[in-house]
């Protein structure tokens, strides 16, 4: 036998399997609602039709080859990358804002990892049964039953993962055609690679790794932790109430001040015993009895630990693994209800409130500089994004002065500047644009034969323009405007103010 080696600190901790007990309650209902909503959107959106003249009729289609995103009535081109930047900014600020207010709400209710893990646990539960049955199955040797149940679970996980991957790919190609092509072996190599990679990643992340993703891999969980303030609402165990003077104890301890900590395996029996007892006593009487003996309200049933998807004991205090999903609140409230004890032994509360001598009812404290700052940034950026999208023109334009040389003196002394005009048609159909100038004589602008230029949707047109002014006029002209008017839409005319350089202005 090796000695001495066992005590060395390992760099890798072997995963302790977690078998979560299912629970009913407010937070479970909310989580389920979010899951159903998110899944409906994710899995059904690629199948929503939307008539399009120049692309497959799919409501949301990320057309990578065409270099555009088609999102319902909106076409997004690479030039609109500012929207993506804004969206990411908004998402980040929203995360900070929400985390400052109610902790890791994103982790607990909305994160993909949480949603998919939840779904996979549900599959596991449907096939293998409730927690005790799953623990038993895990411990028993490999036999026919275990093989069938575990095999079926993993098969369903893989199927769910596969459909997840395929659905993701369907956002990038016409969904019905993609699915058909995929199964007949005619889809693009990129589709097979994407679907395979996502299938394996989903299976590994939601089926095998689960809370390890949140604990070891995810950076967001970690940096959200530092955004907590004393006023932030988070899932807390009210230790003062739960532990009393002598700690938590099962109700049996009521016979005397003997603090007996129950092992979790015996929790079931304890709960049943408690229930019988409570049927005889009212909740208040039982509590008064306990308080007299200096016992806390926690009956140490361990249910809050059993339901936890990351396998922690919330009664040890706020900890980095907690994804703030609220299931322990549901579990504890269920137990408190069954004894007619008041709810909220585990609840959303702030550190500050819990630490105060007379805790008030937990409430959202938003009057903090950080929260107001984030809130203001959120409102401003969202407003700008909405404004930017709603006032988008049907075309993009850029007029740049050719700077090599900045100006040319012509043989009769006139001065010429040249410009490059780029127009990008963002409308869904061919569009003709008129180019004209304001602030200089009409004859001074020369755009060759492209005073009117027709551009295909999603394409750019480049026009060389030159402006020729007599020395006298040039001396007075420092700026002028180039006007670009889509034919038939004079309201969408856009003017670009540009420079005119002359030798006399040269330093």
């Amino acid at each position, binding site marked *: 036998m*090796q*000695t*001495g*080696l066992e*005590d*060395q*600190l390992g760099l890798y901790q072997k995963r302790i399997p977690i078998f979560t007990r299912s629970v009913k309650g407010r937070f479970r209902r909310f989580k389920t609602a979010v899951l159903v909503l998110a899944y409906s959107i994710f899995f059904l959106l690629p199948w929503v039709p939307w008539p399009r003249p120049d692309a497959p009729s799919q409501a949301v289609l990320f057309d990578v080859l065409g270099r555009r995103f088609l999102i319902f009535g909106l076409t997004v081109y690479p030039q609109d990358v500012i929207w993506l930047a804004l969206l990411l900014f908004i998402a980040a600020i929203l995360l900070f804002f929400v985390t400052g207010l109610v902790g890791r709400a994103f982790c607990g209710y909305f994160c993909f990892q949480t949603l998919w893990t939840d779904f996979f646990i549900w599959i596991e539960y449907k096939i293998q049964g409730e927690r005790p049955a799953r623990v038993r199955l895990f411990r028993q040797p490999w036999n026919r039953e275990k093989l069938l149940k575990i095999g079926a679970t993993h098969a369903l996980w893989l199927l769910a993962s596969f459909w997840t991957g395929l659905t993701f790919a369907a956002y990038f190609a016409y969904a019905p055609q993609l699915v058909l092509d995929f199964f007949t072996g005619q889809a693009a190599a990129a589709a097979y690679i994407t679907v395979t990679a996502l299938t394996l990643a989903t299976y590994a992340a939601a089926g095998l790794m689960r809370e390890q993703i949140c604990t070891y891999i995810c950076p967001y969980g970690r940096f959200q932790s530092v955004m907590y303030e004393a006023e932030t609402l988070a899932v807390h165990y009210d230790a003062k109430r739960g532990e009393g003077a002598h700690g938590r104890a099962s109700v049996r301890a009521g016979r005397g001040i003997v603090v007996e900590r129950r092992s979790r395996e015996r929790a079931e029996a304890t709960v049943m015993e408690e229930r019988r007892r409570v049927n005889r006593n009212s909740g208040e009487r039982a509590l008064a009895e306990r308080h007299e003996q200096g016992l806390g309200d926690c009956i140490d049933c361990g249910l809050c630990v059993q339901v936890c998807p990351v396998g922690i004991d919330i009664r040890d205090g706020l900890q980095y693994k907690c994804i703030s999903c609220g299931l322990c609140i549901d579990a504890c409230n269920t137990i408190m209800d069954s004894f007619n004890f008041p709810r909220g032994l585990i609840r959303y509360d702030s550190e500050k409130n819990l630490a105060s001598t007379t805790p008030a009812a937990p409430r959202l404290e938003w009057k903090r500089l950080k929260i107001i700052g984030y809130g203001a940034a959120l409102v401003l950026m969202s407003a700008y994004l909405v404004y930017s999208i709603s006032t988008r023109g049907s075309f993009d334009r850029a007029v740049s002065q*050719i*700077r*090599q*040389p900045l100006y*040319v*003196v*012509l*043989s*009769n*002394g006139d001065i*010429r500047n*040249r410009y*490059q005009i780029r127009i990008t048609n963002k409308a869904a159909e061919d569009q003709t644009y008129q180019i004209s100038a304001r602030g200089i004589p009409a004859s001074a602008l*020369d755009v*060759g*034969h*492209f005073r009117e*230029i*027709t*551009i295909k949707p999603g394409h*750019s*047109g*480049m*026009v*060389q323009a*030159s402006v020729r002014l007599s020395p006298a006029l040039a001396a007075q002209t420092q700026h002028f405007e180039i006007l670009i008017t889509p034919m038939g839409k004079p309201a969408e005319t856009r003017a670009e103010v540009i420079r005119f350089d002359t030798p006399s202005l040269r330093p």
Partner: protein
Amino acid sequence: MSEQKLQSQTVQTTGHAWDGDLQEYNNPLPVWWVYTFYATFIFAIVYWTIYPSWPFGKGWIGGLSDITYVNSAGETKTHSWNTRALFLEDMNKAAVAQKPYFDKVQSMSYEQISHDPEITAFILSSGKALFADNCAACHQAGGQGVVGFFPNLTDDDWLYGGSYEQIHQTLVNGRRGYMPSFGEVLSGAQISDLANYVASLSGIAHDAAKAKAGDVLFHSETAACYYCHGVDAKGRKEIGAPNLTDGIWLWAGVAAAPSGEGKVAAIRTVISGGLAKGVMPAWGGRLSPEQIKVLTVYVHDLGGGV
């Protein structure tokens, strides 16, 4: 502290003892490390089979992966994988993708090109690259030239003509500009007279009396300037003789000279010394006809043509 803790623990030894008490700790490598090490062996073998690896005789073992491409001559070439073949594949792919555009340029007339936004945009970008590779060394990146050396292509003064056909001619066959030196033929006073006359043509401050004498000399058989520059001094595009009446000076540093006398002196230098440096090389043998046509349009559009 942790170090002390570790030392106090018993670590397994290899079981041998030398000199009575000299023992060796047995600290095996971590299992994950060992297996990663074995995995690198397998990776290497797989890599050797796919990619070129071992020298062999005068060549090397090419590996199983190939690169196949169609070159610009339409031949299909296959090489074993190497970075040079990869580069050739990329270049040929690009050339094949560009070919329809070059073909289109070649098949269109200049007039048609000037009406076609797509081809114009293609010429703006491909012409820019061709110009940068072949022309910018002398004419500068923007075609603005260098006074005294290389003509400015962005103005409206063209020594040999600025029409598409004339630019094409210049590009294909090159040009050789020449002006004899008059320093030993004429006296200093005569050259000074001529310089004042030339300055007067484009409104530069000059000595009117000298200019009058220069006028005579210009049109006389002694200097015979008008042979090349024309009776009206507006130049002759057939031989590249510049127009002396406009405001554009390529050879004489007129624009840079601060005063009227300096400008006249700059002109005098050119008359006295002559010129033999106006050489434009011929590109007909170096660039393909399509490339020359693209450059023709590009250069024409630099100055807006004539």
